[in-house]
């Protein structure tokens, strides 16, 4: 069977699995729909968080990103994992004890309805920017491996997500994500292990990493590139720090991750899920830099100094040249390809970072069955993240806006129906973005992290750790943090007063942490200048700090 046949087979098998799980885990009430009935075991919840978190970008692009940015790529590796320490220690146990459905729920109950509305707007904005990229990712993987158009791929993805998310809500999504994590991690590790064995004789990529790293450093220096391990080639010291911090605090402020800690049975299980989540994520994140190094080494080793005629005979070179992600131009006409940092002499003119993971198995000459599996892994990563984000969009509309603010007298059946309708709407919007992608998805993701760090993280942590924090402080803090971060980034990207303008050379991706600090300062100042929160609110804070004791939503009535 050829690659196409294997890919079809893998996709059919995995998609059937997701649909089978969806049918078995239909949601019966709003608790099932928004928080999976609050009864997901810690290990399963951790795997679901991991799949939720690792998107098409993590699976397909990250190894390549790190391979091309060298040490600068570490900001993503550290930022997107370090945030879980903040989540585990500062948010997860307390939000579980609070025990409701959404992030705006906590903001609304702890502060005020005004704060809830600001939180809803942030949650929807952050989730929409993310989901746009995911649906596109589904379409791209389909088109590359299954010879359909990107749009048909997006439609197939929409149909599958629509089926399990509308039917099962959080319950269906959680259990499909457990399956999706298994698929994506197997698809990621098999090629990594095979290549590591092939190149270094050591099957563990993390150990084979060092040997190839040294070789790559030498090769890059020979060809005139910056040494692969040189520390400030991409970002300077200050920006390495600020971007890493922004990604960490942004991660801890992303609503689709935070809501996952409502779905466990107890505070203890919530803490454990945070551990399992980072454990599962770290398997992929520590393998990615190794794949980046192996793959870059392999490609340069094959291409550099080879004759163009010979290269054109290699299967994967031919295949990836057809997609436009790899292109050669024999500029000096000597029939030999040279890879250099100089635009004028470089003859590997296109070397797309996404090739690193997707072409990896072919470059290493692995069997076709594995090439197909990698495609299924990419789809699993994109679908699982899309569905988690869609749930946040759906719950923000149906639960926070319609039920909490407009129609608090609604019946259980009505609320469940609204949730499903909002989910359907969300899938349509996501699909629309997948088919008509905004040209600036990459830029907007920096925006999403910056805004999450600037808005949610400070008000959530102060809400738990400082009883004196009040509604006026929270609203003022969020307003200042959001405005500052948004103005800085929008001006930097598109120009309001001066495109590309920076304050002390701070990269737009690193401004979120500055905005978060401003948010905190304003929150403290305004809270101290205004009246302390009511005794009732201070009791709520006291209550979330301790596990057990009339807990688990008994008071709030979240879990029926």
């Amino acid at each position, binding site marked *: 069977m050829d690659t196409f046949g294997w890919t079809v087979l893998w996709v059919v098998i995995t998609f059937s699995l997701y649909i089978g799980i969806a049918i078995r885990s239909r949601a019966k009430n709003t608790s099932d729909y928004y928080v999976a009935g609050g009864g997901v075991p810690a290990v399963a919840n951790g795997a679901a968080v991991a799949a939720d978190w690792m998107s098409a970008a993590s699976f397909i692009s990250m190894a390549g990103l790190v391979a091309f940015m060298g040490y600068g*790529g570490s900001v993503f590796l550290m930022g997107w994992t370090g945030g*879980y*320490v903040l989540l585990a220690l500062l948010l997860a146990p307390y939000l579980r004890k609070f025990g409701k459905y959404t992030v705006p729920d906590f903001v609304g109950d702890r502060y005020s309805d005004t704060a809830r509305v600001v939180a809803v707007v942030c949650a929807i904005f952050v989730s929409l920017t993310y989901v746009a990229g995911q649906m596109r990712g589904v379409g791209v993987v389909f088109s590359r491996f299954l010879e359909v158009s990107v749009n048909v791929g997006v439609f197939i993805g929409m149909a599958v997500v629509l089926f399990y998310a509308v039917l099962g809500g959080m319950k269906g999504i959680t259990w499909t994500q457990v399956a999706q994590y298994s698929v994506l991690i197997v698809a990621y590790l098999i090629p990594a292990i095979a290549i590591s064995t092939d190149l270094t004789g050591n099957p563990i990529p993390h150990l084979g990493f060092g040997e190839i790293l040294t070789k790559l450093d030498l090769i890059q220096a020979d060809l005139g590139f910056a040494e692969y391990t040189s520390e400030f080639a991409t970002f300077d010291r200050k920006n390495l720090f600020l971007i890493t911090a922004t990604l960490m605090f942004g991660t801890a402020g992303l609503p689709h991750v935070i809501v996952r800690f409502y779905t466990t049975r107890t505070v203890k299980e919530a*803490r*454990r899920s945070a551990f399992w989540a980072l454990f599962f994520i770290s398997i992929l*994140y*520590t393998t990615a830099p190794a794949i980046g190094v192996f793959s870059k080494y392999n490609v340069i080793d094959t291409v550099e100094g080879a004759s163009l005629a010979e290269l054109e005979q290699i299967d994967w070179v031919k295949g990836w040249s057809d997609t436009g992600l790899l292109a050669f131009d024999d500029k000096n006409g000597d029939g030999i390809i040279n890879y250099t940092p100089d635009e004028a002499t470089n003859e590997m003119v296109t070397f797309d970072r996404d090739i690193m993971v997707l072409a990896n198995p072919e470059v290493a000459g692995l069997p076709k069955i594995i090439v197909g599996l990698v495609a299924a892994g990419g789809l699993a990563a994109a679908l699982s993240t899309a569905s988690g984000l869609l749930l946040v969009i759906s719950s923000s509309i149906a639960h926070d806006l319609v039920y909490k603010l407009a129609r608090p007298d609604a019946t259980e059946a009505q609320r469940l129906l609204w949730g499903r309708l909002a989910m359907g709407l969300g899938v349509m919007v996501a699909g629309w973005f997948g088919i008509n992608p905004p040209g600036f998805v990459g830029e907007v993701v920096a925006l999403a992290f910056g805004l999450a760090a600037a808005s949610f993280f400070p008000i959530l942590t102060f809400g738990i750790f400082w009883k004196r924090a009040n509604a006026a402080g929270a609203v003022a803090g969020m307003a200042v943090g959001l405005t500052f971060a948004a103005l800085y980034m929008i001006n930097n990207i598109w120009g309001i007063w001066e495109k590309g303008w920076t304050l002390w050379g701070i990269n737009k991706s690193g401004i979120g942490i500055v905005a978060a600090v401003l948010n905190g300062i304003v929150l403290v100042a305004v809270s101290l200048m205004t009246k302390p929160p009511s005794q009732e609110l201070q009791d709520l804070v006291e209550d979330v700090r301790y596990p057990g004791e009339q807990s*688990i939503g008994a008071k709030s009535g979240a879990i029926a």
Partner: protein
Amino acid sequence: MTPTDRSKYWRTNLRLMTVLLTIWAVVGLGMSTLFVDSLNNISLGGIPFGFWMGQQGSIFTFVALIAFYVWRMEKLDESYGIDEAAELDATRVAAGEAS
């Protein structure tokens, strides 16, 4: 829990958090960003140490920090006689009898 116990429990929790978050900041934001160039002078089996921390070591540290936190907090809960699962089961039984 009595009010004294509660404040003792909370203070222990805050102390543990402070220690772990300090390690987190030193490793994740210090060693791998601010001081990475100095650490790169140290070689770890051929890999510059700062580089290795940024791409591997810091992530392992984060996992270990959460693991330690989970373990300590479970011990703390136990020493204060907190058993959420038992409490939940009891509530469920009580509710079942009432209805």
